[in-house]
């Protein structure tokens, strides 16, 4: 039985970032329909209207806003079990023509946002000696993907951060892992030329686009209550 399909005796909560569209939106729909208490956030509103879903309009790098959101989670009465740090931003550009502002923007969303959400979630999880944190990296890190130096640098930071935090929380019943998806057809890659995407997919061990079910299967494993000995791992979907 997987966490997504598991009916719980006591409802626990899950926080998902970047839920207004793409994979984050699909994750919200999946988990609310399986009986989880879900909290999500994005810079804009959410189209999800469900009694078990609460949406926060915020920037994940805005520390006071994130602290407030996790305060609301704590007050909900549904103990926090999992955090999915899905929010992310991408940019494709040669380093010679990349504005500093691009690096700052991606660093804030991808790294700072992940760090603040991890910290606030872990504060609740360690007190219960129970929790699952899943960050999102990218296969672009292992490919050292040219044209994405800034994006790759931020995702490499997320993956390194994941490994260290896994060690820091290991004694408290909290696992910390990362899923690093291969290209999935979402808005994140909408502006990338088709030829480049095909070349990228052909570098994978399994040469096809990723699908939502691939991510969901990895999450089902990582979030399962019995998966308490897998931590600090980076799962490259499609194979590096």
């Amino acid at each position, binding site marked *: 039985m997987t966490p997504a399909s598991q009916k719980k005796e006591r409802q626990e909560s899950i926080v998902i970032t970047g839920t207004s569209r793409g994979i984050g939106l699909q994750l919200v729909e999946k988990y609310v329909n399986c009986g989880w208490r879900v909290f999500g956030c994005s810079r804009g509103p959410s189209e999800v209207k469900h009694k078990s879903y609460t949406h926060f309009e915020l920037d994940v790098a805005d*520390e*006071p806003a994130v*602290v*407030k959101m996790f*305060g609301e989670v*704590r*007050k909900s009465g549904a103990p926090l079990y999992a955090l999915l740090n899905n929010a992310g931003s991408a940019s494709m550009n040669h380093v010679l023509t990349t504005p500093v502002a691009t690096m700052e923007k991606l660093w804030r969303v991808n790294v700072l946002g992940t760090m603040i959400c991890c910290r606030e979630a872990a*504060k*609740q999880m*360690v*007190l219960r000696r129970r929790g699952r944190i899943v960050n999102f990296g990218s296969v672009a890190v292992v490919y050292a993907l040219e044209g994405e130096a800034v994006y790759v640098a931020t995702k490499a930071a997320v993956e390194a951060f994941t490994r260290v935090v896994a060690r820091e929380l290991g*004694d408290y019943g909290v696992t910390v892992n990362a899923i690093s998806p291969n290209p999935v057809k979402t808005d994140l890659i909408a502006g990338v030329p088709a030829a480049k995407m095909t070349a990228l997919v052909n570098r994978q061990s399994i040469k096809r686009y990723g699908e939502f079910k691939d991510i969901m299967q990895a999450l089902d494993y990582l979030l399962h209550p019995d998966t308490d000995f897998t931590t600090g791992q980076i799962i490259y979907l499609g194979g590096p």
Partner: protein
Amino acid sequence: MASHERLKSLLMECVREYAEQAGVQVKIDENTPLLGADSAVDSLGLVMIVTGFEAKVNETFDSGIVLANESAMSMRRSPFRSVAALTEYAGQLLREAKAA
């Protein structure tokens, strides 16, 4: 408004919980050191005490303070050095949050 005594009581509760879990003997009063050679609390213990205290404060006073913030880290004398100092620091953060 958060009373000093209420905050101190919450913090001492956290130190007590830590001592029980860690199996260490700690004389708990406002002079109890939380840092340094005289402290019975190790570095991870301090992390747990601060985390637990922050949660209790935010729950009790419906606030959203973060104890381990930049200001705390840059102070000449650490606000985490003793029960009295951390109690005073939490009270200060609550007052600042209310005034903001």
